[in-house]
Every structure is written in C-alpha cells, then in structure tokens.
C-alpha cells in the first residue's frame, strides 16, 4: 500500500510538472481548441509512469503522505500571501540596513515545535526570506533552528517564527 502511495504521489507530481510545462501546446484557447495536444498528453502520461517507477522511493522518503490531500495544497497557496507581505517588509528593512549600516547581529536559537521534515524546511526557507533573519543551522533530530539575526531583540521565538509556525502547522503537520 505504501509503495502504491509513493508511486501515486510521484506520478501526480511528474504529470503535473510536465503538463504545466507544456500548457498551451494545443493552439489558441480562445479559438476553441483544447489546452494540450494529443501527443503531449500521451507522452506526458507515459513519461510520468516511467519516472514514477524509477524514482518513487525518493520523493516520499519520510513515508509521510499528508501532502496527498488537495486541501493542504490550497492552504499552501494561500500561505503565499502572508509570505509575500513579510518579504516586502523584509526588503524595506534590508534597504534601511544597507543605507544606514546599523547592525547588531547575533545567532539565536528557536524551537518552533514542528515535527515533519517538510514543515521545518518550509519554515527555514521562509525565515531566510523574511526580515533580518537567516537560517544557519538545523538540528537533525530535534526541531531546533539557529538563526542569524541582523538586529537582535528579545523573545526571538515569537518575533521570528510566530506567524509562520501557525500557518505551516495547518498544512504540513
């Protein structure tokens, strides 16, 4: 059963990527033709089958099939909005630091209480993209992140990762 799930997940990902890349190959949509030409669909399905057969054990190495449900993907898309807002803030902050040169860096530890690999990864990357913080080290077993902070303040857990953790817990845990 797990093999089947692995295979299915890889297959869906591969097919999705392929069809995304070859979208609009069927000609103009407004003129009424379908989005993909027939050859693309046939090739896409066969290639996705082959790739899924070869690399099925790589994608789901942690045997964690939560991400198969479409609802979680939807939440993930919505997550892009707060991330983007944070990025805008980050960049204005960065502009301020670049122009004035006022820095007070430190490396601090936070413990964000996330369990899965995916959650930790998304959190780490989000932190890297947001105000004045940069993930330096991730502990392999425990969920501890060491973060380079360009302007140190108190209570790092809440300031750095508070909002993200709440969002990420909704789709990755």
């Amino acid at each position, binding site marked *: 059963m797990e093999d089947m799930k692995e295979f299915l997940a*890889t297959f869906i*990902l*591969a097919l999705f*990527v*392929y069809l995304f*890349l*070859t979208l*609009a*190959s*069927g*000609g103009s949509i407004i003129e009424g033709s379908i989005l*993909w*030409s027939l*050859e*693309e669909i046939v*090739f896409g399905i066969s*290639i*996705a089958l082959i*790739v899924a057969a070869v*690399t099925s054990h*790589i*994608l789901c*190495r942690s045997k964690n099939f939560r991400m198969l449900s479409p609802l979680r993907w939807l939440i993930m898309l919505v997550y892009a909005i707060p991330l983007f807002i944070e990025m805008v803030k980050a960049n204005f902050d960065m502009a301020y630091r670049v122009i004035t040169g006022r820095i007070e860096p430190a490396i601090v530890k936070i413990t964000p209480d996330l369990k899965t*690999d*995916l959650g*930790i*990864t998304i959190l*780490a*990357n989000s932190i890297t993209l947001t105000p004045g913080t940069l*993930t330096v*080290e*991730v*502990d*392999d077993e425990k969920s501890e992140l060491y973060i380079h902070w360009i302007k140190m303040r108190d209570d790092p857990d809440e300031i750095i990762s508070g909002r993200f953790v709440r969002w990420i817990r909704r789709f990755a845990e």
Partner: protein
Amino acid sequence: MNWKMSRVVRTIADIMVVPIIIFGIYLIIHGHLSPGGGFQGGAVIASSTALLIIAYGSFGKHKDSLSSLESTGLTLFILIAFLGLGYTVFYNFLASGGAVFGGTVPYGINPGRLDSGGTVPLMNIMVGLEVTAALSLILWMMAKGSDSMDVEEASV
C-alpha cells in the same frame, strides 16, 4: 562522500529531483521543436544525480546498470543510423512516412507537434539516455575516487 548535508537541503533535494528529471525529459523530447535536445536534457537529468550525491553522500550501487544503459543508448543510436543503409547511413528514412514520428509539420510555431521529425526524436532520446548514464557515471566515479584517497596503498 558519506556525509549528509543538513535536513533542509535533503528535503529540498528530494522535492527537486522529480521536477528536474521531468524538465530534462521535456528538453529531450521537445528537442526538435524548441531549444534543447538529447545532450542538454541528459546533462540536466545528470545534475539531479549530482543533487542526490551531494545531499546524501552516496548513490547506491548502480554502476553496472548505468554502464549498460549507456551502451544500450549508443548501440541503438548507431543502429538507427545504420537502418538507413538502404539509402545512406544517417538517412532520415522515417520522415514524412506517416508512421511513428512521421507527421509533417507546417511552418510557424507548433509546440505540440511531437509526432514529427522522423528519426531525429528517436536519436535524441537515445543520445539522452547515453548522456544521462555517462555523466552520472562520471560524477559517481569521481565522487567515489575523491573519497577513498587513503584507503588502499598505491604501488609506485
């Protein structure tokens, strides 16, 4: 190379492998329609191997199968070339024949017309197989070779 990288990198590598392979295959089979082709796609797929090597430090025991894949790709390539021997070597005998890859293509952009080109897409696929296997093998051998420098004593 038996040292894994951090958890973040490993997870991202796992996620990226399948899209990279699919992208490589996309380059290979659209080689006769858009920029790309057997070699470029093969190199991209081989870089997914590089990603696995770098993230996990090892690559399993695929040396023999990769070597076989390489030989198979090249043998089929040269056989396709020699199948045109009724006319000449490398003659594109499938073109416009209506059979596999025998469709004719009008002028202009036609991204979806995979069914054209005669022997060219077949050769692209064969070269893609060969290049994938060859570059993966090179990377793997060099990673292993750079690892075991002081294991065995060399005879001078």
